């Protein structure tokens, strides 16, 4: 490139202008390189549609986080104003019914997808070495997702919310030794009182999502670092052949023969 000394074309000029801020950012932070690495890293060529369930779960969680944060601008976490604020959001606020509905049904979709993703990982054996830690993080995420469902259920403060939470807290209370303390801690007192709703709200909005964000970050880091598995039924699964072509029948490993690139 440095040998030719003609002036840059319009196209090249345009490219350089666009890339200038990108290069500026990259030189000062290395972020662009990181994103490049994430986007252009290699994955096995024979991965399956089932393996999109993980990112689908992430999408569902992002929907929950966004709709939840926006709902928090209109929801009032006080026993006397919670129900009216929910009515207000559903009936009066512009698109409030949509955001609330997305949050409510997004919760169900998120949990279904988590279970499906867990099932897929189990059946693919993708919890085995070296991905055991990722599985453990995933189970913790599942438990926390269910915890979000439990704490969020109280927030509309209607009859179902209140009494389902009474039963749920008492369920925790039956745990041996620590049960009564857990129940009283969740309730904020001997009975559900004016502090219970803000407590559940703080747990639902801040404590558990904070933990979920951190664990998702770890989960994704491990996926990038350890790589994605090929489906177990794949004939040319990555990692199963030997690396020496003369010993594996000339087969060079991985992708199915395609029309675009033929393996030599």
């Amino acid at each position, binding site marked *: 490139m440095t040998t030719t000394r003609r002036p840059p074309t319009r196209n090249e000029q345009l490219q350089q202008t666009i890339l200038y801020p990108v290069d500026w950012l990259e030189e000062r932070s290395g972020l662009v390189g990181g994103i490049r690495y994430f986007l252009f890293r290699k994955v*096995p060529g024979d991965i399956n549609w089932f393996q999109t369930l993980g990112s689908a779960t992430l999408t569902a969680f992002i929907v929950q986080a966004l709709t939840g944060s926006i709902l928090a601008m209109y929801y009032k976490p006080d026993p006397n104003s919670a129900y009216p604020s929910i009515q207000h959001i559903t009936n009066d606020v512009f698109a409030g019914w949509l955001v609330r509905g997305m949050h409510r049904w997004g919760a169900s979709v998120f949990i279904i997808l988590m279970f499906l993703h867990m099932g897929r990982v189990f059946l693919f054996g993708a919890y085995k*070495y070296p991905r055991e830690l990722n599985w453990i993080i995933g189970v913790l995420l599942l438990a926390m997702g269910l915890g979000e469902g439990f704490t969020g259920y109280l927030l509309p*403060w209607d009859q179902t919310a209140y009494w389902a939470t009474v039963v749920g807290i008492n*369920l925790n209370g039956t745990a041996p030794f620590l049960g009564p303390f857990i129940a009283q801690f969740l309730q904020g007192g001997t009975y559900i009182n004016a502090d219970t709703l803000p407590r559940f709200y703080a747990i639902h909005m801040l404590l558990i999502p904070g933990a979920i964000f951190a664990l998702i970050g770890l989960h994704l880091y491990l996926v990038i670092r350890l790589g994605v598995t090929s489906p177990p039924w794949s004939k040319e699964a990555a990692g199963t052949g030997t690396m020496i072509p003369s010993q594996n029948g000339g087969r060079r490993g991985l*992708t199915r023969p395609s029309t675009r690139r033929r393996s030599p």
Partner: protein
Amino acid sequence: MAASERIVERRRVFQQYKEDVRERGKPFYPFAMLHDTIMSLVVVLVITGLAIVWKYTTPGDHQTVEPGWLGRLYDEPADPGTINFVPRPDWYFYFLFYLLRIFKWPPTVVIGTVGLPTVLLILLLALPFIDLRSERRLSRRPVAIVAAILVVISMGVLTYKGATAKEALGTELLALVPSWAQQQGFENNEQALAGARLFAVAGCLNCHTYLGAGGTNLGAPDLSAEGAKNKGIKFQVDHLACPACVNPGSPMPSFSGLGKERLQQLAAFLEASKGPK
């Protein structure tokens, strides 16, 4: 294979995996990311669609709490002093909800509430340490397949049964009395009608079932055709006053507290229930 050989072997396999992917893999963007994006779009569309259906199939102006296709937008406001409510968790907890009905003998209650769920969670967490084989082909993992099938079927059955579990609330049952009278044909029988109203609020349907209503959890007999057995008013009154005297070993509590007159009405109702026409 000794443990150290296993460790060396699996490290070699992982190395090989990385080599294979480096040589022959495809870049994540755009090949895999396209599939991810399509699936994410489906997810977002499903969520939005459900939200739209939830709102627009709910009748009325939403100032009342009528249910639509996907249930109510919200219930009545919370009333901690109510005596008329049966709570239900969200549907993804139905399998745990139904466990509570399975473990209903008092000494076993703690197993259903926290015992079993905790054990299952620990099993899930410990899975990578229980299954140490590196085999991933499904045809060579019979235990995994059987376990997966069992788990899916049992969670599915428990969730379904949790969803269809019936409870009996006095206020709702009272509204059913005219339909009962019509089905059983005792609209003109004043005693039987009074007995039917008592039957609805006296807690009978917590244990018994009648014409599709009532709780099945405690296994008490269905009473829809009790009258067809022709046991007679006196038998019914004696039984209600002291079930264990008439039926030794019966767990049914005594209803003598209702008073003689009401027991007569209940007996008339039971005898008039010959079974739906």
